[in-house]
């Protein structure tokens, strides 16, 4: 098959880095949020098998995070103990604080470096 995908999709990935931890790369927006959602549901299901219902999302390699991502994190925070890892002072860190997310999940700030 030679059908080519639409050429402008920015690189994005969400992979289970360790049990209960999802590492995200790229831009989180309306287009990529569904993929992040399934990665998070996958990680949640896995921990629900035995461990506590908790999940950590590493957002340090995310360079854009819009309201579709914020909505998703509210949803996950309602279902599990959620920790997000961000680079202190980064754009994602700011979004997490402004949008009120920091009141419903744990923010682990890692100094830039």
């Amino acid at each position: 098959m030679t059908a080519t995908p639409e050429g402008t999709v920015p690189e994005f990935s969400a992979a289970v880095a360790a049990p209960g931890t999802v590492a995200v790369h790229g831009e989180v927006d309306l287009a990529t949020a569904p993929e992040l959602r399934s990665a998070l549901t996958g990680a949640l299901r896995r921990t629900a098998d035995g461990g506590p219902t908790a999940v950590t999302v590493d957002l340090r390699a995310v360079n854009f995070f819009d309201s579709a991502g914020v909505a998703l994190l509210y949803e996950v925070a309602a279902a599990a103990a959620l920790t997000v890892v961000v680079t202190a002072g980064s754009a994602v860190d700011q979004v997490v604080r402004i949008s009120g997310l920091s009141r419903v999940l744990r923010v682990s700030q890692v100094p830039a470096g």
Partner: protein
Amino acid sequence: MTAAEPLDWPLTDPARLAAVDATGLLDTPAESAFDELAALAARLTGMPLAFVTFVDDRRSYWKATVGTGIAPEDVCTRQNAVADSFCQYVILADAPVVVTDAAQDERTRGNPSVTTTGVRAWAGYPVRGPDGHVLGSFCVVDLAPRQFSAADLEVLETLATAATREVALRAALRRAQDTTVELARLAARQELMARILGALHRKLDPIEELRELASVVVPDLADTATVHVLRTPVRPGRRPENLPVITDRVATAVIPEVPLPAERTGLAWHGEEGDPVVEVVRHGRLLRRPATPDVPRWARSTGSERTFLAGVDQVVVVPVVVEGLVVAVVFFGLHRDREPWDDEDLDQLEEIARYAGLALANSLTYQRTRDSALVLQRSLLTDPPAVPGLEIAACYAPAGHDEVGGDWYDVFALGSDEWAVVVGDVVGHDIAAAAAMSQLRSALRTLATDRDRSPAATLTRLSAVNRALGLTDLATVFYGRLRHGPAGWTLRWCSAGHPPPLVLAASRAGVRTLGGDPGEIALNRFLPGVYSDAETTLAPGDVLLMYTDGVIEVRGTDLAAGWDELAARAADALHLGVSKLCGELLPKGCHDDDAVVLVLRVLP
């Protein structure tokens, strides 16, 4: 079914199981042929999950999955037990199964997946083997109840047929490994269809879809392709009542040896002898015109005689039907140096026209809903009222391609000496976002005016309303009450996760931000919000600048930089009237989010 057959017949039918086994697809990694069909189904129906499954007597194997995030080679995870699957119902029924709410549906409410994985809406069409056995299903899944439109089901039926054909291709591949020519032909055909599918669904503009259709067929299947769009769609199968039929020739594609006919509008087809447009409408399906040494009369009158003079001597005409009406007619031409089309080629041309109809139906639906959402949103964003002692202006910029958005602003009176100012942003860029915006806007108006509540109490109620009614997954709102008292204007405000407004002093002495770090909980469907009020005074000359994130959020820059930049631009434009100031602050050029600016100045 006879009385002797077990209840789970034909799930356990040995002939069916043998056919499933013969596909050779069980426990094999994902392949693009099936993945692309599933991805297309998810995209066209708007469902988050899609599968192509093959089902034996124990489990449903997911040859393709979309939305589950399972790796292509992870063959162990790509399956569930037959008893947990919904595919079993397609096999038991030997027919499509559509479930709009699995928790209520008698057939499915006992299925463990309803509680374990939350499957609520499910639609599956049979994928059949060469002898007609149902091997598995082509299905889409949602975790919330939903209805399926006729167009959704048509998409699924068509794509399930494509999956069935893909299975047949595999069977042919194994059965006849010596007839390599035949195989190459089959494979090329499948590949072409895949390319056409991909091309057609990339565009949301119907005319663009038709241009793609023309260009993708040449030169693999035809030497010329010309698309005529009917000004007024007509019912196929009978002679059009109103003649002439008027068409616009919107797209043409040709091999290099043939001159390209110009795009032309207002071509008239009077239904005279040999008129291909009127004849194909009456015929209702593919029409083959005999090879002719002469240039047909209609070609002269429509400015395409040069195509025939260049050696095109065979033409087929195919109608493109959308929702029961012929909306376009496609002419395919073949150069005299080429092998004539055989029956299978003609089938394929007809099939392409059918896909084009589906793609068009999809893009037309998209345009209709988008247009109504735009109207809805614009109708709510009216000029702010005049308020004594204040100068107020608002403006709105849609995203890039005049997209629908969920941003809004509102200014309204609360009694005689108090005013409400609101800026909000609902996630999404579709009809659902526009509808949720309109509902939140009116809910906030109602809550703010029906009794004397503080902004925080109002937003706490609004949060509860949003959760109870499930209006939107996420919205941010800034709501302020402005009161004029003996000491001047005071603003009592509350923000639900909204980017903080700025207050700029006329003296340019500095910029204040109203809250925001950390912000209070955004309105969302999942968690309740409890809010608190803050208060500030506005001195004469102060400018209060409220906005949505589209104003500051540009990919690649962070919010702090966005605010600094916004504050700097506002300070530079502070001498302007509020309307001009608003316009200055809206993002310029191309941007992918919509944006609202609401500016208010306290008159001296």
